[in-house]
């Protein structure tokens, strides 16, 4: 079985491009060109150069001494938190801005939830001097004020999404609407491995730098070519996709996907898509999706705005349905405690999204020789407010 996308844009039964006709020319143009553009050596050169000089790659693979000791296994942290703008998101936006340039686009739109992807998009647009419009749910604008300010400083226009639940899902709807209304000059930079084909595959490829580096770094540090496990949190699934990428087809590498259970999987306030979702269509992709029996998309909940998405990317739906990856969900409280533990043991304040990945160690046990790589997808500066409130700091 393959876990990569097939030529029709599917991962198993998931994926595809369920898009309104108005988007067809845009998506089709991208589909026909993305592989060729990405394979072009001048593209790769520019992409790699920016990742190195601007983003700060390679990010370290850091052996977490005290954490490893506490949990009796060998835990390595892939330090995506050290990327420029503070998360893995920028790997993708750097790639997509170069893609947009080669497609001759002069205007960029993006959606954002926590604001990380919005900041990463605004950043690359500033870098290239391209107009940038970021859609963000009105509620998220209120609760992620620092990232809104960052986007504005970077010259982006932040447009509030006032429809629906006024959060990430609706911001995505608004971005798609903008794209429908601006079919010629605009490229839509999606922030995760979601959306119509070829987005999930394209974003996964841009993020695959993560697993590529892990391989080289494990070689250097442990003299092995692969870890026993890769652990990543899953919102849409891009940091997971990036850290799994080169291990997808090698089933000796355990893939662990950590979802947000919010206040408890069955509390009605959760974002654990694999546990609660059914196959459906969201944002142009057939995937697992939290929805009513009637097919209305439901509002997810998580303390972390970046996991607060009612779907997962089609790759992840397939990894779940096929059993290739192990899905674990983690409550707000477990995640927050794991985040604080990482601060105290390793001096690293993780994004709350990322903190979910660390919460598994309390219950999921590994042997002492297991090499477990956790993708430390982002830093927690954007979440200080939430940490302060939660822990009464």
């Amino acid at each position, binding site marked *: 079985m393959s876990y990569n996308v097939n030529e029709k844009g599917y991962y198993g039964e998931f994926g595809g491009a369920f898009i309104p006709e108005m988007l067809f020319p845009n998506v089709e143009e991208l589909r026909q060109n993305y592989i060729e553009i990405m394979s072009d050596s001048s593209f790769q050169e520019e992409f790699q150069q920016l990742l190195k000089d601007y983003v700060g790659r390679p990010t370290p693979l850091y052996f977490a001494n005290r954490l490893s000791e506490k949990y009796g296994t060998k835990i390595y942290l892939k330090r995506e938190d050290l990327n420029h703008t503070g998360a893995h998101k920028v790997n993708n936006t750097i790639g997509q801005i170069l893609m947009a340039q080669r497609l001759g686009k002069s205007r960029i739109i993006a959606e954002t939830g926590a604001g990380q992807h919005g900041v990463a998009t605004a950043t690359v647009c500033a870098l290239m001097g391209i107009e940038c419009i970021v859609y963000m749910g009105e509620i998220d604008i209120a609760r992620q004020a620092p990232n809104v300010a960052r986007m504005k400083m970077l010259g982006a226009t932040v447009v509030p999404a006032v429809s629906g639940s006024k959060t990430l899902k609706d911001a995505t709807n608004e971005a798609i609407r903008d794209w*429908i209304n601006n079919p010629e000059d605009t490229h839509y930079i999606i922030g995760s491995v979601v959306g119509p084909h070829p987005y999930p595959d394209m974003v996964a490829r841009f993020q695959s730098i993560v697993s590529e580096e892990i391989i080289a770094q494990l070689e250097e540090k442990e003299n092995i070519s692969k870890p026993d496990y890769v652990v990543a949190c899953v919102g849409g699934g891009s940091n997971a996709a990036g850290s799994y990428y080169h291990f997808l087809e090698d089933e000796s590498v355990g893939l662990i996907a950590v979802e947000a259970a919010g206040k408890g999987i069955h509390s009605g306030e959760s974002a654990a898509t694999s546990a609660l979702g059914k196959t459906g269509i*969201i*944002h142009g992709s057939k995937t697992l999706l939290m929805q009513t029996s009637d097919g209305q998309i*439901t509002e997810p909940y998580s303390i972390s705005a970046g996991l607060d998405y009612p779907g997962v990317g089609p790759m992840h739906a397939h990894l779940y349905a096929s059993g290739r990856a192990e899905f674990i969900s983690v409550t707000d409280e477990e995640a927050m405690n794991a985040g604080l533990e990482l601060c105290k043991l390793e001096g690293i304040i993780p994004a709350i999204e990322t903190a979910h990945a660390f919460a598994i160690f309390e219950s999921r046990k590994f042997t002492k020789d297991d090499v477990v790589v956790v993708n430390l997808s982002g830093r927690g500066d954007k979440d200080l407010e939430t940490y302060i409130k939660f822990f009464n700091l």
Partner: protein
Amino acid sequence: MNRINETIRKDHKLLSIYFTAGYPNLEDTAEIIQQLQDNGVDMVEIGLPFSDPLADGPTIQESSTQALKNGMTTTVLFDQLKGIRKSVDIPLIIMGYFNPMLQYGVEEFCSKCQSVGIDGLIIPDLPVDVYHEHYQDIFEKYGLKNIFLITPQTSAHRIGYIDSVSDAFIYMVSSASTTGAKTGFGDVQMRYFERISNMELKNPQIVGFGISNHETFNHATRFSKGAIIGSAFIKFLKSHELSEIGDFIGSIRKG
């Protein structure tokens, strides 16, 4: 013969009206359809509301949200439509997003459509190739016409393909846009309407998006068979009684 095909043969410009089922009130569906027929509308699109209507502008979005709040569901809609064919004989088309249909079961959905007297479907996020490969047989089995959209950006090649898969009419989106986004038609759009008209497709075209009054209706139908009004009608419903629907239709027809 399917009522849509029959209607399309009529030699006047067709006026088709979209409304969101369950809006403004849950139980308005049947009454709105009746009013539309009684006031001479040629065809009705019944919007099955969806939480995330990404091809729609704010007006239809809001009406969908309200309809869902009012309790509209696929099952409720079918219940409301059960007796509709007793008094309504213009074509009825359900317009909705694919996910609720998928959850209902596509075949089950089509079967139900047939049994309440639905003639066709417009599903903005079900692309023609997916339809063609997976669902066409089912639709045809239940006598449902599937209507596809084309836009100014749709290539001639693709229009040909869509025309070949279609068997009712082609929904010609006036400009690449979400519903209700632009107002009035300019030269660019008129040339586009004319261009498509000159292609002499087997299916007639009905223009949608951006038609709000007598003038735009006339423009839109200069080179096409008819036009669909959606957002403008929803806006009208927001501030008028159902009994006033005739005024709205009159204003479109007569200006």
